[in-house]
């Protein structure tokens, strides 16, 4: 743990933070403005992983491995979630022959 931390610490923390913010913002914009459902799901993953990246970075800088353990959990949950999301997309494709999110507007009251 010590050696890895020192390797990571060669890069200043600010760089990690800026990268994370950049990835998160890209993901958020993608979620907001894309219409392709698959792309939206990919952007969601991007947001996820930016947060994961930040968590590992902080964990390394604090020399505390529990943050890294958490990241594994988050990745597992994300995998499960994306499985559900993709199956919805498959059903959507079968039913309306499209993956455009704006076609999915019957989910109301």
């Amino acid at each position, binding site marked *: 743990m010590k050696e890895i931390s020192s390797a990571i610490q060669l890069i200043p923390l600010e760089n990690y933070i800026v990268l994370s913010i950049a990835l998160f913002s890209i993901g*958020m914009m993608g*979620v*907001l403005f894309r*219409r392709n459902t698959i792309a*939206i799901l990919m952007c969601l993953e991007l947001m996820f992983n930016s947060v994961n990246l930040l968590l590992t970075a902080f964990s390394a800088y604090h020399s505390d491995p529990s943050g890294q353990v958490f990241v594994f959990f988050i990745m597992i949950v994300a995998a499960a979630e994306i499985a559900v999301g993709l199956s919805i997309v498959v059903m959507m494709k079968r039913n309306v022959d499209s993956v455009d*999110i*704006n076609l*999915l*507007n*019957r*989910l*109301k*009251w």
Partner: protein
Amino acid sequence: MVALNSYITLSWLVPAFPLLGFLITGMAKNRLKNNQAGIIASILVSLSFLMSAFLFFALRSSGQESATVTLFNWIAAGDLKIPFAFLIDNLSVTMMLIVTGVGALIHIYSIGYMHGDDRVNSFFAQMNLFTFSMLLLVMGANYLILFIGWEGVGFCSYLLIGFWFKNPAFNYAARKAFVMNRIGDLGFILGIILLFFTFKSVGFTEVFSQATSMHSGTPLVTLITILLLVGAVGKSAQIPLYTWLPDAMAGPTPVSALIHAATMVTAGIYMIARSSILYNLAPLTMNIMIILGLATAIFAAVIGLRQNDIKKVLAYSTVSQLGYMFLALGLGAYSSAVFHLTTHAFFKALLFLGAGSIIHAMGGEQDIRKMGGLRKKMPVTYFTFLAATLAISGIPPFSGFFSKDLILSKAFENNPLLYILALGGALITCFYMFRLLYLVFFGSQRLSTVHPHESPRVMTFPLIILSILSVFGGFLNIPSLFGGDSRFGEFLNKSIISGITEELGSATEIGLIVSSLILLGLVILYAYRIYVKKADIPVADGVSTNIFSKAIENKFYVDEIYSAVIEKPFGSLSDFFFNKVENKVLDPAVDEVGILTSKLGNLVRKLQQGNMSFYLFAMVAGILLFIIFILIV
């Protein structure tokens, strides 16, 4: 010692047998045929009786005074620790023998009496459940288990009074019994709560050991005893809550014999005798009991004078005899009360079963004016009924003589006026019982449509056993006056702390007995002259002109007064609350809340457009706003 304890742990079997009977007959009620349910129920109650007798001998030979059997811990919450335990001592064993012994005989009798009824299996299931509850009541080692039994017998009584539920009048009688008992039960449970509040326990041994160090007349104890007395007054049908018992005769006759004469109604007597230590500390309550008991004894006897329904006469006589027991309790002669309870259980069960035999023979007719001349047709019923009548009238050497004389002499010790009143009640009792006997068995038959015949042997057998007990039951407790040793009283006094000690001089006592016997003889002769010699049949209802006899015929209008004072105002109050408060205030208020919610929902539902992008945008915008808010504030 060791031997006793190992036997006594088996005491749970006593209530377990009737419970098993209830489960069998109750669950298989659609499968059991003919007399099967009755036979199963009778056998199980008899086993229970044998077990009680076994416990009785085990207890007597051990020399121990009491034993507590803890089955399991029932409630444990903070200070409140209540084990599910049975207290086996002389008092509870006596009660167990009465309940299971008389109960077994009545179960056997019911096989004959209820033969052919289409709900006979339910009948035996309910009778067994009653026996189980009654045993819990007398065996429980704390007030809470007593209360379970107390409520259980009340419930079974309700079921069995309304057994023929297709008759609305019977249903009304059942409800009336239930409500009247409930008034008493409220007092009883308040008493238990106050007991726990005072003694931090509801177990008999814990409460009584603390109570012995208290002063006489402590207000808290007086209040507790009065509240418990309210419960006893409800259950044991004393003034002012007695009106349910005569109506309870709507049930089948064996039910009247078991529940409303021999066992359940004596629960109040048992409970007060059990709490004797508390009652000794409350002279005020004792005086209330004397007044209530004596008033009930005389009042009910007077009403009994002009009843024409055979079961109603016996019902008022039961109320009256319970009054005597309360009088004895009030005088502090607890063991005399329990002794009278015992002999009363024998002869009153016998009277009711005899009445059942008569009703059976008369094809359901209960009006004594239509009977008559049954002496030749039903010799077994006649002789057993005669024995019971002599016993209840207090003719020596029948059992009632010993028990009633004991109470009368205690009354004399306290105050000669009490004695005179109590003796007056006894004379009235004697008169209406012989009136009943003469009208039913003597003269000629007045209803020609039926052909009375002796009941089957399954019904006469319990009658014979009970008549033997009624005749010889008094010898259990021969007073020292007649060279006896009051064995029964001494036996009970090990579990009861008697409130009085002094004995009457034997000269006084002989004088009292002789004078009362002469009066009883005169009363019997008078009844004989009216009802046999002159064959004076009571007039039909509503014909008598004398105001006083009219009042008696209508039971002093007590039911009407209760109806006018409590039932009607309560009914109109309920109507008011239903029509004005419920329909005009509460219901609209609840409706308005619902309408308002759905209107608000209609406003907000416009936001849900189903557009996924918009949802996502709203979510992000919300989070951003939240972050900005946090950063600024």
